[in-house]
C-alpha cells in the first residue's frame, strides 16, 4: 500500500476526533461534579486542606515542581500529581476533550490569559468568587487581573505575567554606535543602520507571530477585539493597528527582519551569536536567555519598550498564564486551597525565586526582587525595568473568545504579508474576516 503511513496517521487522527466526540455525547449529560455552587469560606478551604486528598494539576510551568513539594510538606495529607499535558495549544486540546468527556479532567489547569475566555465561555471553569477570591484583587497587578476576569466572574488566579520590554544586544549597538531606540521611529532607524553596517545582522526576526502582533497593536492603543457576552466585534483596521502596520510594513519591505521563526533552534542561535540585535517580548524572557542563548552571556541588556509617541510609557502584555479550577473538578475546594497557595501565598514567592516573573504586587515591589542583578545581563538589575513595565500596561484590551483558533489560522492570511504576496494591513483584514467567519459559525453575534 503506497504511503500507508500517511494513511495510518490520518486514520488515527480521524478516530481520535471521532472518539473525542463520542465522549462529548456522554459528557454533556453527566453531572457537574461533587461541589455545588455554594459559597465556601476560608475556614472551609483550610479544613479541606487539613483533611487532605489527591489533586491532579495540568501545567507546563517548570517552577511549579518546587511549589508542589513545599505544599505537600505543609499539608502532608494532600497529594498533588503534577502532569505536563503539553505546552499551550496541545494542553488546551487535551483539556477541552477531557472536559467534554466528563472524565479525566484535572483539578487544576494552567491556562494562558489569551486562551482563558474560550474556556470561560464554555462554562468549563469554576468561578472563584465562590471562594471569595475576589478579595485578592489588590494582591495582583492590573494586567493579569484583567486577564482572569470576565464581567463579574473570576476564572483563575494569575500565575505570572509578561509586561513587554526591549531586550537588546549592547555589543552590537556599541560597535556600530547606534543609540538604543526609545521610539519606534528610532527603532526603524536603528534597524537600517545596523543592517547596513553588517548585512548579516538584523534588528530582530519575524515571520509572522499572532501573539507578538496582537501585543504590538495593544501597545499602540488598538482595541481590535471587543466582546460583550456573545456579541463580538473584530476590527483589525483601527488606528492602533494602523500605527503598527505602517511601521512594521517598512521593516518588511526593506527586508530588515530576519526570516527566522521564533523559538526555533536557529532563533536561539541568532540570539546567541549576535546576528539578532533586539527582541521585544514579555518579562518572562530572561530565564530563556540565560538558559538557551548562553553564548551571548554578558552582551544583552533590557530597556523599556519603544514608544509610539516620544516620552510615552505605554507597554502591553505578551504571554503569561493563570491557574484555573475546571468546573468538572470534584474537589474544587481542595483545589482552590492549592491554587491560592501557588499563586497568592508562599508558592508565588517560591516561583519568583526560581525565575518566574510575578503577577503579585508584593513580589514585584520587594527589594530582593528589584535589586537582583543578573550576570547574563552584565549585572543589570533587570527586574527594575520589567516591574516598572508591569505598571504601564495599556488598559482596556481584550482577546477573542476563540483566540486559540484565531492564532492558529493567523499564518494562513497574515503569512502572505511576509512572503510579499500581500501587505500587512490587507492581510490583517483578511485575518479579521476569517475570525469573523469562524465566530459566526460558532454562534456569536458579529458586528
Amino acid at each position, binding site marked *: *500500500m*503506497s*504511503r500507508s*503511513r*500517511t*494513511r495510518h*496517521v*490520518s486514520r488515527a*487522527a*480521524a*478516530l481520535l*476526533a*471521532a472518539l*473525542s*466526540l*463520542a465522549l*462529548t455525547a456522554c459528557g*454533556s449529560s453527566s453531572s457537574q461534579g461533587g461541589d455545588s455552587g455554594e459559597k465556601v469560606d476560608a475556614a472551609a478551604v483550610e479544613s479541606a486542606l487539613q483533611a487532605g486528598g489527591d489533586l491532579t494539576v495540568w501545567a507546563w510551568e517548570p517552577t511549579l515542581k518546587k511549589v508542589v513539594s513545599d505544599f505537600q510538606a505543609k499539608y502532608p495529607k494532600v497529594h498533588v500529581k503534577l502532569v505536563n499535558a503539553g505546552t499551550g*495549544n496541545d494542553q488546551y*486540546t487535551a483539556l*477541552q476533550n477531557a472536559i467534554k468527556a466528563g472524565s479525566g479532567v484535572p483539578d487544576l489547569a494552567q491556562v494562558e490569559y489569551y486562551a482563558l475566555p*474560550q474556556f470561560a*465561555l*464554555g462554562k468549563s471553569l469554576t468561578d472563584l468568587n465562590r471562594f471569595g477570591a475576589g478579595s485578592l484583587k489588590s494582591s495582583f497587578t492590573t494586567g493579569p487581573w484583567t486577564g482572569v476576569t470576565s464581567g463579574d466572574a473570576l476564572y483563575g488566579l494569575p500565575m505570572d505575567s509578561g509586561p513587554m520590554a526591549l531586550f537588546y544586544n549592547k555589543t552590537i549597538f556599541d560597535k556600530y554606535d547606534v543609540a538604543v531606540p526609545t521610539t519606534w521611529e528610532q527603532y526603524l532607524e536603528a534597524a537600517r543602520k545596523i543592517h547596513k553596517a553588517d548585512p548579516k545582522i538584523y534588528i530582530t526576526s519575524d*515571520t*509572522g507571530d499572532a501573539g507578538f502582533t496582537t501585543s504590538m497593536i495593544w501597545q499602540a492603543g488598538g482595541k481590535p477585539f471587543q466582546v460583550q457576552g*456573545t456579541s463580538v466585534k473584530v476590527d483589525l483596521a483601527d488606528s492602533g493597528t494602523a500605527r503598527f502596520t505602517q511601521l512594521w510594513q517598512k521593516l518588511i519591505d526593506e527586508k530588515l527582519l530576519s*526570516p*527566522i*521563526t521564533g523559538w*526555533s533552534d*536557529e532563533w536561539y542561535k541568532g540570539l546567541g551569536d549576535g546576528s539578532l540585535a533586539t527582541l521585544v517580548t514579555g518579562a518572562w524572557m530572561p530565564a530563556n536567555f540565560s538558559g538557551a542563548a548562553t553564548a551571548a552571556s554578558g552582551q544583552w541588556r533590557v530597556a523599556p519598550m519603544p514608544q509610539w509617541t516620544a516620552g510615552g510609557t505605554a507597554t502591553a502584555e505578551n504571554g503569561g498564564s493563570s491557574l484555573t479550577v475546571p468546573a468538572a473538578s470534584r474537589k474544587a475546594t481542595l483545589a482552590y486551597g492549592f491554587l491560592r497557595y501557588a499563586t497568592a501565598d508562599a508558592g508565588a514567592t517560591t516561583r519568583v525565586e526560581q525565575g518566574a516573573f510575578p503577577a503579585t504586587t508584593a513580589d514585584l515591589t520587594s527589594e530582593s526582587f528589584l535589586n537582583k542583578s543578573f550576570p547574563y545581563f552584565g549585572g543589570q538589575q533587570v527586574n527594575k525595568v520589567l516591574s516598572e513595565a508591569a505598571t504601564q500596561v495599556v488598559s482596556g484590551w481584550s482577546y477573542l*473568545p*476563540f483566540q*486559540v*483558533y484565531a492564532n*492558529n*489560522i493567523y*499564518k*494562513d492570511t497574515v*503569512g*502572505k504579508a*511576509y*512572503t510579499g*504576496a500581500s501587505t500587512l494591513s490587507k492581510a490583517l483584514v483578511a485575518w479579521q474576516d476569517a475570525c469573523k467567519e*469562524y465566530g459566526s*459559525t*460558532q*454562534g*456569536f453575534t458579529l458586528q
Partner: protein
Amino acid sequence: MTATAQSDSHPRGKPRAGDPPHRTRSRRRWVGVGFIAPFLAVFTLVFLAPIVYSIYLSLFRERLIGGNSFVGFDNYVDVLNDDQFWTSLARVALFLAVQVPIMLGIALAVALAIDSRRLYAANLFRITVFLPYAVPAVVATLMWGFMYGSRFGLVGSINENLGLSLPNPLSPDLVLLSIGNIVTWEFVGYNMLIFYSALRVIPLSLYEAAEIDGAGQWRIISAIKLPAIRGALVVATIFSIIGSFQLFNEPSVMQSLAPNAIGTYFTPNMYAYSLSFSGQQYNYSAAVAIVMGIVTMIIAYVVQLRGLRRESAA
C-alpha cells in the same frame, strides 16, 4: 489477471432438484450466519462503525454558543461552498497530476532496467532504490527540509560557496514541488518493487518466442512486458491516487520550516485535522473527511474502470 474470476459459471443461485423442504432450509441459513458471525462482528466494529459514526457526526453541529443541534446536510452544503476546501483539493489534484506520473514513470524505468538483466550489481541497485521507503516519512521530510534550507541547509551552502542564488525551495511558489520531490524519493522504490515482481512472473517462454521472432528489447517491452504488468500499473496508480489525496505527513512536518508557505488548509487532510483539533469543529471536519473519501473513491474507481477496460480490450 482479473479475468479468472469470471470463469466460474456454476449456477449457484438457481434452486436445484431435490432441495430440502422450506423449514430445514431456513434453519440451515441460520447455521451459516453463525459461521460468519465472528467475522461480521469484527468487520462491523472495525470497518463499518467508524464510517457510520462519522456520517452520524457530520449531520450535527456543535457551537460554542448554542450547543449541539441536528443540521441535516448543512455541513455538506458548507463543504461544497468552502473555498478553502476546494483550494486544498485543487492543490492535491495538481500534485496528483504532476507527481504521480513522474514517480510511476521513474519506478517503471528502474524496474525495466533491473529486469533487463543487463545491469551490473542489480541487487544492490534494487535495494538502494528501495531503501528510502524504509525511512519514516517524518524523518525523510526533516532530512529534505534541512537540505532545502536556503539559510542553513544545502541550498544555502551552495548559494554561499558557489556564489549562486538558487530559488528558495521553501517559498510558497515552490513548496509543492519540493514536497513532490520528497514523496517521489520515498515511493519510487516501493512502486518499482510492485512492477518488478509483476515482471518476474512473465513466463520465460514468451521471451524465447520473441527472440525467435527477432524482436528487439524495445519491442519486447512494448509487446510483452507492459501488457503483462498492466494490472500492477493500475494497482500502483490507484494507491498513488489515494496517497496523494491523503497527503499529510510531509506538508505537516514541513510547516515548521515554511510556516508562511504551508497553511492550515494546505491539503484536505491538514484542513480536516486543523478543523477538528484546533477549531473544535468535529462535525464539519467529519463532513470534509467524508466528502474527501467520496471524491477519492470516485477517482480511484474511474481509474480502475479505465485500466480494466483497456486490459480486457488488449
